[in-house]
């Protein structure tokens, strides 16, 4: 069953169109990420689902009920803000209990449920502290506990990890995911970090300029993006533009030929792309594969990249253990299968 249904939602700020007829369904228990650069409309969409903004057009349904006109406080959502937005004058306990107090829940039940929520985020020992006395990670957990203690129909997270430093962020990713699984909460997670989106989500929505570019599993988004924008945003990509020959070969302007990973209509002008780890560098033969010049090896510690000059572009290729090391300036061939982007959509 669809837990959240967004139907043709638009949002206009004066003469700026922040969202353009966005339609999206979220399944019950699903963890869905909305990924995009700042200003793409992802936070606006989340705020519209929460009721913190009203859509200019379209409808929002939560748990089978149309909530488009409902104010925030009637929507039964949990919301986690980017800066946590904890109330500085209230203790951790009171931050979490506020929602229950407002619902006139009995004192005994408030106590049980708040303790339970705090135990879930491992903060039961700090219930009497003020937010200012907590670390960033702890504040983040209070914000999570505050959102889940009400057993909301959906959990909405607005870049909740971006205020944390890198190590803490990775720990919190794991915790957030296991919390979501334990509670079976339908969650929408807004982020601009593609790794975060890919590693946490059941499905990823890539947004750009107020429209959804693609919706799919992390694997689909990464391996078979439909547009050049998605391909470039979710990972490193090298693009080839050319004309399809014989259904599965892309002829580039410089005469080189790239085999395609999926067939495309012969004669179409399309764009295709490869990821750095899909390419294998080889000594040139007369196979017609794109030829480049080896420039250098960049060492990162856990891995290395080759830098290869291809015409007037410099591209990265993942170095694998056991790969041959080339001399700087040596001619190389790029052995790879490129993935065609949606035919026609990316005409040259």
């Amino acid at each position, binding site marked *: 069953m669809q837990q959240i249904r967004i139907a043709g939602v638009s949002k206009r700020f004066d003469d700026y169109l922040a969202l353009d007829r966005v339609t999206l369904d979220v399944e019950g228990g699903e963890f869905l990420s909305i990924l995009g650069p700042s200003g793409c409309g992802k936070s606006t969409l989340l705020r519209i689902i929460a009721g913190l903004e009203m859509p200019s057009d379209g409808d929002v349904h939560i748990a089978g009920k149309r909530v488009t006109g409902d104010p925030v406080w009637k929507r039964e959502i949990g*919301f986690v803000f980017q800066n946590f937005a904890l109330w500085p004058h209230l203790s951790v306990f009171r931050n979490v209990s506020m929602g229950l107090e407002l619902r006139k829940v009995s004192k005994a039940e408030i106590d049980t449920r708040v303790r339970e929520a705090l135990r879930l985020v491992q903060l039961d020992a700090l219930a009497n502290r003020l937010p200012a006395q907590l670390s960033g990670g702890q504040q983040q957990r209070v914000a999570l506990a505050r959102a889940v203690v009400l057993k909301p129909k959906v959990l909405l997270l607005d870049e909740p990890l971006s205020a944390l430093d890198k190590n803490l962020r990775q720990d919190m990713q794991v915790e957030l995911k296991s919390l979501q699984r334990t509670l079976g909460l339908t969650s929408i997670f807004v982020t601009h970090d593609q790794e975060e989106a890919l590693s946490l989500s059941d499905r990823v929505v890539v947004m750009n300029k107020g429209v959804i570019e693609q919706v799919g599993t992390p694997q689909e988004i990464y391996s078979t993006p439909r547009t050049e924008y998605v391909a470039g945003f979710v990972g490193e990509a090298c693009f080839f533009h050319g004309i399809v020959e014989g259904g599965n070969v892309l002829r580039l302007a410089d005469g080189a030929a790239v085999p395609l990973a999926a067939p495309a209509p012969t004669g179409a002008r399309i764009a295709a792309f490869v990821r750095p780890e899909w390419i294998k560098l080889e000594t040139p033969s007369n196979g017609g594969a794109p030829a480049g010049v080896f420039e250098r090896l960049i060492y990162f510690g856990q891995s290395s990249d080759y830098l290869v000059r291809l015409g007037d572009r410099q591209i990265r290729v993942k170095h694998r253990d056991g790969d041959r090391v080339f001399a700087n300036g040596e001619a190389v061939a790029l052995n790879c299968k490129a993935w065609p982007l949606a035919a026609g959509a990316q005409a040259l």
Partner: protein
Amino acid sequence: MGGALDDARAPRPRDGRVILMRPSPAFIALRYATLALFFLFLLAPLGVLVAVSFNPTAMIFPPQGFTLKWYAVILDKPDFLHAAWASTKLAALTAVLGTACGVFAALGLKNYGGPLKGAISGLLMSPLFIPAVIVALALFQIIFTLGIQANVWVLLAAHIVVTLPYPVRNVMAQLDGFDQRLEEAALTVGATPRQALLRVTLPLLRASIVPSLVIVFILSWNNYTVSVFLADKNWTTLPLQLRAYLQYEYEPFVAAMSTVLIVASTVLLFVMDRLVGLGPKRK
């Protein structure tokens, strides 16, 4: 940890503050001289007044003896005690009602984005720029024209009007840096806007509300210009009573009375500062 990575030639305090250039001795001397002059002009006259209050004979400085009898005299003057009580009640009412008006005006202005915003906030601030005596005269003219007797409600309204800029400005300044998401967070856990106001916004605005209460109380307590036009006989405030007394008598009793007022104001400020911190916030 990490100390070895720091550049040893550029020592820095651990909190990362930048050390400013050390000022020259002449500059430091000038700074202290300014400060000294400031206190001299501000406090010396008060010191003279306090000293005179201990003088057994007349309002003369330096005092020619030491007595506390003028302080005892205060208790023998029911007019003054009555006036002090009237002033207290008036100032307390002005503080509570004026600050409440100021809070709501500031909250309203924050949410109102219309074309009249500048005009409205300018209007609320205008008592700062228009001499209080003109406001009082205008009010006096109005009630005279309407044929209303001077009464405490008109006086209270006038006190609120002339002190209103202070709470409005205090609260607006705090709202300016107020994180809207704190209120939104309350809405997301099920609070109506009114509940969010009561449970989140107002408690957090305490930092500007309490100082507003104190400053309005003191301004109202001390006000002479407005009261002189609008107070009726039952509401002769302390400043009016002092002024009236001085027209006929000039003895150290007045100095003693003033000393009590100075001490009371100082204590009030001190206590409030301890309770909520009126000064600039230390981070």
